[in-house]
C-alpha cells in the first residue's frame, strides 16, 4: 500500500506527458486512435441503470459495463448502479461480472437500462489462463480442467492440491495426514517411477508442487490444469507431467475497495483406531508362542494383567486447526490491487501441537499499474513464513508404529524405583520398538522457512491486438531447521539406551544437536508477444511467440555437535554444546555443505485459429535447452496441434435441447528433464554414500586416510524424456444450459524415460549413468459433469462430478527388460520391498507371494510343492511358475496401490440465506499393503491373531496362520496376506452456512456469513487400518501403510465477512 502511494505520485497522474512521448514513437497508430476517440465522443449518449444478480436480486457492485470493441467502460458502484456515456446509437454494450454470464445489448437511445445477470453455470464465455496467454474457453481445442475460487473456499484446504482432488478430472491426488505435507499428485496416469510431479505456474511464474505448501488458497482466483499435448507443448520440457496453472486474485479498474475477512477454527481428531491386543490377550498369546516354540511361559499370572495400556489412546490428541484471512480488493483508473494477509495453524493429531504442527503466514500484494494507456506494469509480491515440527512417521518404530507394536502390559508411567524416565518400559522388547510416549517426549525439532516469490511484469500494447509481455519471476526460499537427539533411557535392559537406568550416560553415547540452513533461489525471465487479429471478418488468429530463460539454484549447509548441556532442548544449540572432536570421536562436531543449479533456455510459439468460433485449430512448438543433458543433445523440440469443431454453431444444427456442442482432438509431444548433469568425476575423501553405496578411504592402524576413486560415469547421449499424447473429447451443454459434460479420452506414450540401467556387477559399484531407455504407456478417461438447477428464486442446487480413470503399463525398462526399480521398503523382522516398477506390469505394483490358505496337515505339506520350513498351520504359498518348489521366482503381482478410477462429487445447495456444500470422493480398486506389523517376538499383535490356526480345520485363512515365536516357513514374507482392498468412499467435506440478510448487516457490512464445517466426515472402506488413502511421497511409496499419519477429522466453525 505504501508502495503504490509513492508510485502514484511520481508517475501515474501524468498521463498527458506519457501520451505525447508515445505519440512521437508510434505516431501513425496513435493519431489514428486519437481521431477515432475524439470523433466518437462527440455524439455520445448517456445510459444509466442498475446491475443485479438474477437469482438473488442482490445488487452487483464492481460489475463491468463497457462498449464492445472499445476501451470505454465503467464499473458499477457499491449498490450496483452505473452511468456510461455511449459513443453513438447502435453500439453494443457488454455487462459482465466474474462468475456470471455476460449480457450484450444494443443501445438505441439514452436512458435507464437495468440488467440482471445469470450465474454462469456452464462458464462458456469464460476466459481461461493457458501457457503464455489466455483463451476463450469456447475456442480451446485442448483439454483443461478448472477449479474455481468458491470451490476452494468451501473446502478450506491447507494446501492447494486438496482442492484438485476429485474436482479436477484427470488429476489424481493421494493425500497424506501429516500437517502441511505434500500429497502424491499425478496428472493423467503414471509416466515414470519418479519425477511425476506436474509443473506449477503461479501467475505465469514457474514453481513446483513443493511450493504449493506456501500458497494461501484464499488468494486463488482459479486453478486450471493443462492436461493434453496441445496445451502442454508450449511448456516443452517442463510440461511433460501436466501443468497446474494458479491464477491469484487481482483488483479491477474503478472498483471500490472491498474488504474481506474470513476465519475458521476447528478441532481435529483421529477418526478410528486399529485393533491390537489388550494386555491380557497379549500376555496369553505371548505365552502360547513361547510354549509352541519350546520355551517357558512368559506371563505366569495372566489374571493380574488386565487390559493394560492402549498406546494409541496415549499418542493421539485432539489438535486445533485455524485459518484467518484478510484481503482488500479494488482499483482506480490506473492502479488496481489485491492485498491479503493469511494465517494458518494446523496442529498434528499424533503427539499434539507440541510435537507436530504446520504454521503458515502469508502476505500478498498483487498490484497492476497502467503506466500509460499502452503500458502496464504488474507486481505480484508474496512473503510466506512457514513453521513446522514433525514426529517420526511411517515406520514400525515411528510414533504410530510404536503405539501399535509396543507391549500393552507396560503402564503409561514409570513406577519402577531407582530408574529414570517418566514413562513405563518393557522388559521384553529390548530394541527397536520403544514406549511411544518416551519416543514422543524425546522428539525435538523445528523448521522455519521464509519464502519470497512473485513477479515483475511489463505489458505493452504495441498496436491493437499486439501485446508484448516481459516478465521476471522469482522464488526465494530459505529455511532453517534444528533437531535435538537427547540421551534416552528406554528401559534397564534396552540395548538402544543412550542413558543408563541411573541417569548416567552410556559409555560412548552422546546427545547431539543438528542445524541446517538451506537457501534456494530461482528466477525466470520470459518475453513474448501475443498478436490477436481477425482477417476477413471471421478468421480469427491469436499468435504467440517468445523466449524464456530460467535458472534455479541453491545451497545448504549444516552443522551438528554433541554434548548438549543438561541433555535439554533449552540448551540445544551448536554454541552451547561442548563436543570437541578427538582421536576416538570424530563425530563430536561435523558439518556439511552442498549446492546445485539448473538452467533452461527456451523458444516457443503458438498459433490459435478459429473461423467464427466454429472451426478451431491450434499449433504450438517449443525448443528447449537444458543444462542437465548430455554433451551431444543439449536441445529438444516439441510440437503439438489440435482441431476443434463447435457443432452447435453450424447453421444446420438446430436443437433446442443442446445448447452447445464442441468436438475436439489433439496430438503432440512434451518432455521432461528430470535428470542431473553427468560427468566422470573423481570423488575424494571418506565414504561417499551414493546409490549403490560406495566408499572411499581406509584406515591404517585406526587412523583414517582419505582416498579417491572415479565415482561416476557419463552418458554424453543423455537426452530428454518424450511424452506423446493424443486426446479426443467433447464439451456439451444441454437442457437450458443446466447440464454440461466435458469428456476426454487420452493416450500417452512416454519414451526415453530417464532410467538408470542395470549394469553387470563386474563393472563394480560405480553407479551406472542414467540413460533414455524406459517406456511406459497410459490411457484414460476424464469426465466432468455438472448439473445446476434453480427451482425457484430461493432454492438452487448444483452438482458437479468428476471421473478420472487411467491404465498404466511399463512397456520397457532396460534393453533386456530385466531391470526393475524396487520401492516400498519396510521391516517386519527382515527388510522387504513391496513395490516394483518393472516391464510388463503396472507401475509400482505390489510384488510378493500369493497365498493359498493354510497347510492343515503334514500330508498336505508332503503333497504340495516343496516349501522349506512349512508346518501345519503355516501359509501355503502358490507355486506360480509350477516348478514344484516355492522360491523367489514364485513372486508375482499381488496388488496395485493405484485405483481403477476415482470419482468426485461436489454438491452445493442454497435456500434463501442458507447454503450447503458437500464434497465426496471415491477411490475404487486401490490396494493397501499393511506394513506396520513389526512382528518381533514380544511386540504386540493385531486382533486377527485371535482367529489363528489352532489345529487342522480350525481355519484356512492365510491371514491367520498358526502363532509361534519361530517362523521357519517365513509366514512374514511379502505376500497377499498383507494386501487389503483399499477402495473407499470419503465424505471429505460438509459445510453448512448462513448469510445474514443484508437488511440487518448492510449498515456496516456488505455481507456476513457464518458456517460450520466437518472435514473427513466419514470413510466407507473395508480397510482395517486408519485410512486407506496413503501417500508417502513418490509413486513407489503409495499405499504402503507403515503406520501412516491418518488424515484428521476436523470439526470447524467459521465466519466470512465482506465490507
Amino acid at each position, binding site marked *: 500500500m505504501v508502495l503504490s502511494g509513492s508510485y502514484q505520485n511520481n508517475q501515474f497522474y501524468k498521463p498527458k506527458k506519457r501520451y505525447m512521448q508515445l505519440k512521437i514513437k*508510434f505516431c*501513425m497508430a496513435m493519431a489514428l486512435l486519437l481521431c477515432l476517440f475524439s470523433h466518437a465522443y462527440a455524439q455520445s449518449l448517456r445510459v444509466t441503470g442498475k446491475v443485479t444478480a438474477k437469482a438473488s436480486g442482490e445488487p452487483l457492485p464492481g460489475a463491468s459495463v463497457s462498449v464492445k470493441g472499445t476501451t470505454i467502460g465503467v464499473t458499477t458502484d457499491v449498490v450496483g448502479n452505473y452511468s456510461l456515456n455511449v459513443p453513438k446509437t447502435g453500439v453494443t454494450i457488454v455487462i459482465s461480472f466474474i462468475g456470471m454470464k455476460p449480457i450484450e445489448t444494443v443501445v438505441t437511445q439514452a436512458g435507464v437500462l437495468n440488467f440482471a445477470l445469470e450465474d454462469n453455470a456452464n462458464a462458456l464465455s469464460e476466459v481461461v489462463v493457458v501457457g503464455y496467454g489466455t483463451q476463450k474457453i469456447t475456442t480451446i481445442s485442448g483439454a483443461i480442467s478448472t477449479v474455481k475460487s468458491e470451490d476452494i473456499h468451501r473446502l478450506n484446504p491447507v494446501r492447494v492440491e486438496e482442492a484438485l482432488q476429485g474436482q479436477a478430472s484427470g488429476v489424481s491426488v493421494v493425500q497424506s495426514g501429516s500437517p502441511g505435507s505434500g500429497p502424491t499428485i499425478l496428472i493423467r496416469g503414471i509416466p515414470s517411477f519418479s519425477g511425476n510431479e506436474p509443473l506449477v505456474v503461479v501467475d505465469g511464474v514457474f514453481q513446483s508442487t513443493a511450493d504449493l505448501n506456501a500458497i494461501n488458497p484464499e488468494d486463488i482466483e482459479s486453478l486450471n490444469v493443462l492436461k493434453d499435448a496441445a496445451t502442454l507443448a508450449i511448456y516443452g520440457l517442463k510440461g511433460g507431467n501436466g501443468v497446474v496453472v494458479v491464477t491469484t486474485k487481482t483488483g479491477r479498474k474503478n472498483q471500490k475497495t472491498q474488504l474481506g475477512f474470513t476465519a475458521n477454527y476447528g478441532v481435529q481428531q483421529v477418526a478410528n483406531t486399529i485393533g491390537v491386543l489388550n494386555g491380557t490377550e497379549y500376555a496369553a498369546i505371548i505365552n502360547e508362542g513361547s510354549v509352541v516354540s519350546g520355551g517357558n511361559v512368559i506371563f505366569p499370572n495372566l489374571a493380574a494383567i488386565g487390559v493394560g495400556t492402549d498406546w494409541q489412546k496415549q499418542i493421539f490428541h485432539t489438535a486445533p486447526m485455524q485459518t484467518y484471512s484478510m484481503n482488500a480488493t479494488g482499483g482506480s483508473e490506473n492502479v488496481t490491487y489485491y492485498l491479503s494477509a493469511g494465517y494458518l495453524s494446523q496442529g498434528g493429531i499424533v503427539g499434539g501441537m507440541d510435537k507436530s504442527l504446520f504454521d503458515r503466514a502469508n502476505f500478498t500484494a498483487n498490484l497492476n499499474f497502467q503506466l500509460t494507456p499502452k503500458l502496464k506494469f504488474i507486481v505480484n509480491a508474496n512473503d510466506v513464513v512457514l513453521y513446522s515440527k514433525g514426529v517420526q512417521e511411517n515406520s514400525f518404530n515411528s510414533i504410530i508404529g510404536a503405539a501399535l507394536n509396543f507391549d500393552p502390559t507396560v503402564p503409561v508411567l514409570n513406577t519402577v524405583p531407582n530408574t529414570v524416565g517418566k514413562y513405563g518400559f518393557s522388559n521384553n522388547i*529390548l530394541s527397536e520398538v520403544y514406549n511411544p510416549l518416551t519416543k514422543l517426549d524425546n522428539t525435538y525439532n523445528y523448521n522455519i522457512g521464509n519464502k519470497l516469490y512473485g513477479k515483475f511484469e511489463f505489458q505493452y500494447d504495441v498496436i491493437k491486438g*499486439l501485446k508484448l509481455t516481459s516478465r521476471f519471476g522469482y522464488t526465494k526460499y530459505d529455511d532453517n531447521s534444528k533437531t535435538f537427539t537427547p540421551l534416552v533411557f528406554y528401559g534397564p*535392559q534396552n*540395548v538402544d539406551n543412550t542413558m543408563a537406568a541411573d541417569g548416567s550416560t552410556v*559409555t560412548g553415547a552422546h546427545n547431539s544437536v543438528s542445524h541446517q540452513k538451506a537457501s534456494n533461489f530461482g528466477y525466470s525471465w520470459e518475453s513474448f508477444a501475443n498478436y490477436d487479429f481477425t482477417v476477413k471478418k471471421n478468421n480469427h488468429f491469436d499468435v504467440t511467440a517468445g*523466449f524464456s530463460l530460467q535458472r534455479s539454484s541453491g545451497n545448504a549447509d549444516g552443522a551438528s555437535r554433541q554434548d548438549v548441556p543438561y541433555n535439554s532442548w533449552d540448551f540445544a544449540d551448536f554454541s552451547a554444546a561442548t563436543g570437541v572432536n578427538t*582421536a576416538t*570421536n570424530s563425530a563430536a562436531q561435523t558439518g556439511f555443505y552442498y549446492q546445485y*543449479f539448473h538452467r533452461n*533456455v527456451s*523458444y516457443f510459439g503458438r498459433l490459435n485459429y478459429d473461423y467464427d468460433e466454429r472451426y478451431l485449430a491450434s499449433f504450438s512448438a517449443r525448443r528447449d535447452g537444458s*543444462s*542437465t543433458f548430455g554433451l551431444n543433445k*543439449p536441445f529438444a523440440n516439441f510440437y503439438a496441434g489440435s482441431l476443434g469443431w463447435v457443432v452447435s454453431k453450424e447453421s444446420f444444427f438446430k436443437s433446442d435441447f443442446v445448447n452447445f456442442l464442441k468436438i475436439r482432438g489433439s496430438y503432440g509431444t512434451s518432455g521432461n528433464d528430470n535428470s542431473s548433469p553427468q*560427468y*566422470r*568425476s*573423481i570423488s*575424494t575423501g*571418506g*565414504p561417499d*554414500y551414493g*546409490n*549403490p*553405496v*560406495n*566408499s*572411499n*578411504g*581406509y*584406515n591404517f592402524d*585406526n*587412523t*583414517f*586416510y582419505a*582416498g*579417491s*576413486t*572415479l565415482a561416476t560415469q557419463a552418458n554424453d547421449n543423455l537426452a530428454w524424456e518424450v511424452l506423446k499424447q493424443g486426446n479426443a473429447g467433447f464439451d456439451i451443454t444441454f437442457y437450458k444450459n443446466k447440464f454440461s459434460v466435458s469428456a476426454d479420452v487420452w493416450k500417452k506414450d512416454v519414451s526415453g524415460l530417464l532410467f538408470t*540401467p542395470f*549394469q*553387470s556387477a*563386474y*563393472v*563394480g*559399484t*560405480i553407479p*551406472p549413468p542414467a540413460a533414455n531407455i524406459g517406456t511406459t504407456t497410459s490411457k484414460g478417461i476424464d469426465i466432468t459433469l455438472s448439473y445446476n438447477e434453480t427451482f425457484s428464486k430461493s432454492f438452487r442446487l448444483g452438482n458437479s462430478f468428476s471421473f478420472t480413470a487411467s491404465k498404466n503399463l511399463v512397456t520397457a525398462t532396460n534393453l*533386456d527388460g*530385466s531391470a526393475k526399480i524396487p520401492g516400498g521398503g519396510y521391516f517386519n523382522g*527382515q527388510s522387504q520391498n513391496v513395490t516394483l516398477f518393472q516391464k510388463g506390469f503396472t507401475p509400482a505394483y505390489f510384488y510378493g507371494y500369493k497365498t493359498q490358505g493354510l497347510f492343515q496337515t503334514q500330508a498336505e505339506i508332503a503333497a504340495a510343492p516343496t516349501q522349506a520350513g512349512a508346518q501345519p498351520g503355516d501359509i501355503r504359498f502358490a507355486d506360480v511358475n509350477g516348478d514344484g518348489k516355492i*522360491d*523367489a521366482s514364485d513372486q508375482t503381482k499381488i496388488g496395485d496401490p493405484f485405483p481403477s478410477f476415482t470419482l468426485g462429487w461436489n454438491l452445493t445447495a442454497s435456500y434463501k440465506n442458507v447454503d450447503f456444500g458437500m464434497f465426496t470422493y471415491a477411490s475404487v480398486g486401490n490396494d493397501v499393503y499393511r506394513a506396520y506389523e513389526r512382528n518381533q*517376538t514380544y511386540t504386540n499383535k493385531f486382533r486377527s491373531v485371535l482367529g489363528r490356526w489352532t489345529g487342522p480345520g480350525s481355519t484356512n485363512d492365510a491371514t491367520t496362520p498358526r502363532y509361534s515365536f519361530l*517362523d*521357519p*516357513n*517365513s509366514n512374514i514374507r511379502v505376500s497377499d496376506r498383507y494386501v487389503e482392498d483399499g477402495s473407499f468412499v470419503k465424505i471429505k467435506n460438509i459445510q453448512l452456512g448462513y448469510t445474514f440478510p443484508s437488511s440487518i448487516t448492510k449498515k456496516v457490512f456488505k455481507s456476513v456469513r457464518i458456517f460450520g464445517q466437518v472435514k473427513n466426515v466419514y470413510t466407507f472402506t473395508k480397510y482395517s487400518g486408519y485410512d486407506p488413502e496413503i501417500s508417502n511421497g513418490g509413486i513407489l511409496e503409495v499405499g504402503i501403510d507403515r503406520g501412516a499419519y491418518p488424515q484428521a477429522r476436523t470439526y470447524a466453525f467459521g465466519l466470512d465477512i465482506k465490507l
Partner: protein
Amino acid sequence: MKKKYIKVLAIVVLTAMGTSCTKFASFNPVENFKITDLQYLKTESDYRTMAISVYSPLQWLNQMQPIGDIASDNSVAGGESASDVLPLQQIDDFTLTPVNSTLADLFVSAYEGINRANYLTQFKAANPSGEAITFAGKDAMYGEVTFLRAYYYFALVRMFGDVPLFADKRIDITVSGTLKRSPKADVYKQIEADLNSSISVLPAVQVQKGRITKYAAQALLGKVYLYENKFDQAAAVLEPIITSGAFSLVANYASIYTAAGENGPESVFEIQYTNNSPYYNWGGATRGEGNYAIQQNGIRGINGSSTLAAGWSTNLPTQNLNNAYAAGDQRKAVTCLDIEAYKNANPSLNITYQVAPYKNTGLYSGKYQPHKGETSGQVELNYLNNFRTLRYSEVLLMAAEANNRATAPNDAKAQGYINQVRARAFGDALHTVTSTGTTLRQAIWDERRLELGMEGDRFFDLVRTGQAASKITGFVTGKHEVFPIPNDEVVISGLAQNPGY
C-alpha cells in the same frame, strides 16, 4: 513504420538470444566444483590417495568371513528367525539359489576393488591427460595395488570358480554384458603374476600398520599355490617368511583378538576397521569404516557388567566345532564362547541375556564379539575389530601342508611347523604331532580348523582338500564346491551359471 519497428525489434531480440542462450543451457562440471578424470592423477598425492581407495573394498568383503564358517560344519546362521538373514540361512542349509543378496554384494564388491586397481594400473605409465607422473616409491605403491587385485580375484575364484577376467583397465557400462567367464586357471595365472610382481617391489616392513608388506604378498601367494595344489612353489614362497624371523606366535591366544592385539607380532595381513570415523550408514551397512560382522556375532539382549555388548546372534559356532577341541586347548573358549558357562562362572557380572531365538547352539564366536567401548556413532555398524586375515600361525600351517604334500615331502619340517602352533595352543610341548604322510596331512587340516576356527576359512578349506562332502550336511559334490553366480549376472550379463544352480 510499425512493421519496420516490429521487424527491428524482432531481429534485435532474436540475435541477442541466439548468441547467449546456447551457452546458457550448456554445462561444465567445474560449475559444480567437480574434479573430473582429466584433472586428476596429476601429482604423487593423487596417485597415493587413489591407491588408498583400492583398499576400501577389503572392508566391504566382511561377509565372506561368516560365510566361510556358516557354509561349513563350524557354525550356523542363527539370527532372529528362519526368515532373518535369509542369504546366510540359504548358505547354511545349502538351499542356495542364485538370488542371494550377500553373495551378490560380495561379487560386486570384489569387482569394484579390481576396477579400482585396474584404473591405477591403466594410468601407471601416463595419466588420463597423457602425462607421465613419476615419484619415488611409485613401484612399491603399485605392489600394494597388484596385491589387492590378486586378493579380490582370489576371493572371487574361491567363491564362484570361473569369473570374468580383465586387468587392462577400469571398465564401464559400455562393457556391461559383453564379458564371459574366464577359466579358473587363467584367473589364477593373473593372481600369481600380480603377487609375484608385488613381492618383487614391496618392502618387508611398512611404516603404517595394515599396509601390504612383502610377507603378506608371499603368504597370500603361498595360500593361492595350495589352492592350486602347487605345493613345491608354496613351500618355496612361504619359507622366507618363516626364516625372516619377522613374526612370532603370541603366548596368549585370546589376546590376538583384543583391540590391543591388533596388528600384533603374529599379524601378517589384517583388514583394518576402526570406530574412529563417522563413516557408517544403514544404507551401506557393510561399507563403512566399522566392522559390520561383529554386531552379527553378538549375544541378544546381553546385560550386566561384562565387557560384552549385545548383538544379533548370527554365525553361532556348532557343538561339533566345540567338541573338536581337546582338553587344555586354550583356543576352545575363545573360538566357542559358551555364554551360559561364562555367566555361571562369573556371577558377579550379573549377566542376563536372551537365548538365541533361532538355531541356538549356546555358543558364540568369541574371537569377534561386540565389546563395550569398541564402537561409536551408529553402534551396530562401527565396531573397530580388524579381521586377522593372514596370521603367522596360518603361515606355519600352510608351510607344514606344503612340505607334507611337496614332490619331495619333508614331514619333519612339517611336524616342526604344526607343533609350533600346537605348543602355543596348549601352552606346553605335550601335544605334539608325530605322524607322517597322509595322517600328518589330516592332522594339519584338522589343526587348521582348530587354529583358524570362526575366521572364515573352513568351508573353502574343506572344498580345497576334498573333505566337504564328508563333513558338511547337505553338501552335494559337483555343485556346492562353488556358490551360484548372482542371478543378475546370469540375466543381465549373460554369464553361464555354475552347474546345479
